[in-house]
């Protein structure tokens, strides 16, 4: 008997079909991968199983019986647990309180008993948790553990994980996979959504590939190469291989000197003695788990937050106290993490969004907007960066994440910046768009621009960065040429262990076994 069976599931939204006649079967204890590009309908399908979204057509069988999931609460009763990509946790509550809220009343009656159970369950599955800590003090990896433990406490039969590894350090990923294997051995089915094909191959028994809302293929990942998997996802026309030459860089353009900063925001990370240099014609990558000071650092570079004058320099000019506008005049381009709201104004057209940061060029004269030039500028971005949109009058929020990101990066690049700062440039972007974005960043580097990339995607950083470092708890690790830093070394840096130098050594197999004992999250917390 199958754990779950979806038949002919169809869900239409105005203007698009999210799922069309999707069939999916998962056996007990099976780890099943769901693959697909952005907008392929994976998330919608998971939300249908979890009862957040109602399908227009189709049926669902749970342990052989046809059911209609009325809502998340009902799904939980049945034994379906879900860990969302954006966690559904409450930051101002403690771990125990967060978990208590999602349990049936009788089980959550005594908070003390519940704390005991949390400790027992989390230790059994190798995911240590302190039930008394406030969620906002936890690292992303620990927050994910809260979500998973929350599901496990409810005798879960099917666990859905939406891109669980995108926010974890390599060591944390290893721990998570051990837990998932243990769970599947105990008979729990797992639905695993990921963009990372290597992980899918390492972990999953079966895979279903979605393309434009329809099932485009099935495979057994362990018997399939990564290239074949990628091909199934993106189709035949996108080149997959990326091999970029590393560059040396010329003169230092951006330099940060001994920057310490404490924000007023209690959830923010305090930066401690950060120094770094980015040369013209190189890409510097900063790895790190989100919430370890990346945002604070980028705000200080972009000028959204200011520091003492003599801490940030653009080509030897001290700019620490300048506003974003003045820094842009000096040649800064900035691609923030949030596309909607900071990178672009959701309700404004692409044309107007182009003007937002482009107004210093010849788009305006004496304070008046030259509309025809603005239109031409927006049109140029759309054409050069292959943005799929209804036209220059399309609202920014109507674009998919990947296309909007291409537009924003295009807008910055076409202004010929001397320094481009990118935060998570391909986060949540599908393979095709990600390749294009990386390609453009490399092109920009080769034109002599200094590029700083902050990302959680380690593969990406290895692929494009010329030098690499990691940030943890507001401190920066040593900087080194990318090919001198092993992935284990970077993992240790991301966990805050800056002492363990092995930069000159080759990939050291023994360090992989040391790493999990390190408990990276303890130090990685705020």
């Amino acid at each position, binding site marked *: 008997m199958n754990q779950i069976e979806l038949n002919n599931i169809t869900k239409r939204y105005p203007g698009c079909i999210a799922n069309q006649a999707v069939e999916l079967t998962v056996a007990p204890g099976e780890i099943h991968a769901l693959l697909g590009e952005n907008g392929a309908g994976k998330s919608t399908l998971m939300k249908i199983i979890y009862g*957040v979204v109602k399908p227009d057509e189709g049926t669902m069988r749970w342990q052989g019986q046809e059911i209609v999931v009325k809502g*998340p609460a009902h799904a939980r009763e049945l034994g379906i647990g879900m860990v969302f990509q954006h966690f*559904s946790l*409450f*930051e101002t*509550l403690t771990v125990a309180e967060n978990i208590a*809220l999602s349990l049936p009343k009788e089980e959550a009656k005594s908070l003390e008993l519940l704390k005991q159970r949390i400790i027992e369950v989390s230790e059994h599955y190798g995911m240590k948790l302190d039930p008394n800590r406030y969620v906002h003090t936890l690292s992303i990896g620990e927050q994910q553990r809260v979500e998973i433990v929350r599901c496990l406490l409810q005798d879960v039969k099917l666990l859905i994980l939406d891109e669980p590894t995108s926010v974890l350090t390599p060591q944390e990923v290893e721990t998570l996979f051990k837990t998932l294997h243990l769970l599947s051995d105990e008979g729990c089915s797992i639905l695993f959504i990921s963009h990372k094909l290597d992980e899918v191959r390492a972990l999953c028994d079966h895979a279903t590939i979605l393309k434009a809302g329809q099932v485009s293929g099935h495979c057994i990942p362990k018997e399939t190469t990564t290239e074949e998997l990628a091909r199934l996802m993106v189709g035949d026309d996108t080149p997959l291989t990326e091999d970029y030459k590393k560059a040396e860089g010329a003169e230092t353009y951006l330099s940060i000197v001994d920057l310490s900063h404490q924000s007023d925001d209690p959830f923010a990370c305090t930066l401690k003695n950060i120094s770094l240099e980015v040369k013209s014609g190189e890409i510097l990558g900063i790895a790190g788990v989100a919430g370890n000071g990346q945002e604070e650092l980028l705000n200080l570079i972009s000028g959204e937050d200011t520091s003492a004058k003599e801490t940030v320099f653009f080509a030897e000019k001290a700019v620490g106290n300048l506003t974003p506008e003045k820094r842009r005049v000096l040649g800064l381009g900035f691609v923030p993490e949030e596309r909607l709201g900071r990178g672009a104004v959701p309700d404004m057209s692409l044309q107007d969004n182009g003007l937002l940061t482009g107004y210093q060029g010849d788009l305006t004269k004496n304070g008046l907007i030259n509309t025809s030039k603005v239109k031409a500028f927006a049109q140029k971005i759309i054409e050069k960066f292959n943005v799929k949109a209804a036209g220059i009058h399309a609202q920014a929020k109507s674009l998919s994440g990947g296309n909007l990101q291409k537009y924003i990066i295009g807008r910055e690049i076409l202004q010929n910046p001397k320094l481009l700062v990118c935060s998570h440039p391909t986060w949540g972007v599908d393979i095709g768009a990600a390749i294009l974005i990386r390609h453009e960043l490399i092109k920009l580097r080769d034109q002599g621009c200094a590029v700083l990339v902050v990302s959680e995607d380690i593969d990406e950083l290895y692929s494009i960065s010329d030098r690499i470092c990691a940030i943890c708890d507001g401190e920066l690790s040593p900087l080194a040429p990318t090919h001198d830093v092993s992935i284990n070394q970077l993992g240790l840096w991301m966990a805050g262990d800056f002492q363990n130098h092995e930069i000159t050594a080759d990939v050291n197999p023994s360090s992989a076994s040391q790493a999990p004992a390190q408990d990276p999250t303890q130090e990685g917390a705020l």
Partner: protein
Amino acid sequence: MDFELFTNILFATLRTGTPLILIALGEMVCEKSGVLNLGQEGMVLMGAALGFIAAVVTGHAGLGIIAAVLAGMMMSVLFAFLAVTLVSNQVATGLALTIFGTGLSGFLGAGYVGMAIDGIAPFPIPFLSDIPVIGKVLFSHDPLVYFSWFMFALIFWCFRSTRLGLTIRAVGENPEAANAIGIPVMKVRYGAILFGGAMAGLAGAYLSLVYTPMWSEGMSAGRGWIALALVVFASWKAERILLGAYLFGAASIMHLVLQGLGFEASPNLLAMLPYGATIIVLVIIASDAAKAKLSTPLALGRPYRPQV
């Protein structure tokens, strides 16, 4: 200042603070669930007017109280329907509710202006009220004062150690996440708004049946707004609301006493005293930005649309 005057001042302080406590506690619960209801003033006035009318018509002040609570709840249902079900802008809807309530209460109560009734009598608690000074200050009040203490304790306990309190906070912090773990966001918000309405109505009854047993148009004199400010300055904490409300009460009484004593200052300046003093004290208490942020309901004023 002699001793009896001092006792009287304290006694009056508690009475003056009571309506503020009732309104502010109700609004606090409402805001904790993420809903900003600016209609307090309108709900208080409706409670005061209908409470008074019901007391006059039936001859029972107790029935007046029930009518006032129901009036407040009726008003808040209207607000909840617009702001939660129809997802209208909470600020605009709340303001409209205040204007609506002010006008409607004036219209309904027009025939009752100037009438006098026997308000709700004080109920000195046996034995306790015989204690010197404390007995007079704390235990010789009308039942609604005691009730406000009871509600304070109830709400304090609810948010400190019950699942209900946790649920309300969760909805006010992240309604999407709350929905995802199976909390009925709409129901919780409706409940919180209704509770806020009931408390505002009760405060209205206190004004027209206890504090000054009569009805006059606009008799709430901005207390709904003060209570709103109180909730924010008290960082959504029940104990600080209690403190703030009594502080306001004390300062209000002091300005009358100072005038009575012939204190040489412009009466207009003295009339500012309660507002200034309350705000200054609460701002000082809440000056720790880090802590204040932790108790602020993150989704306050943000409408929630369920996914379909």
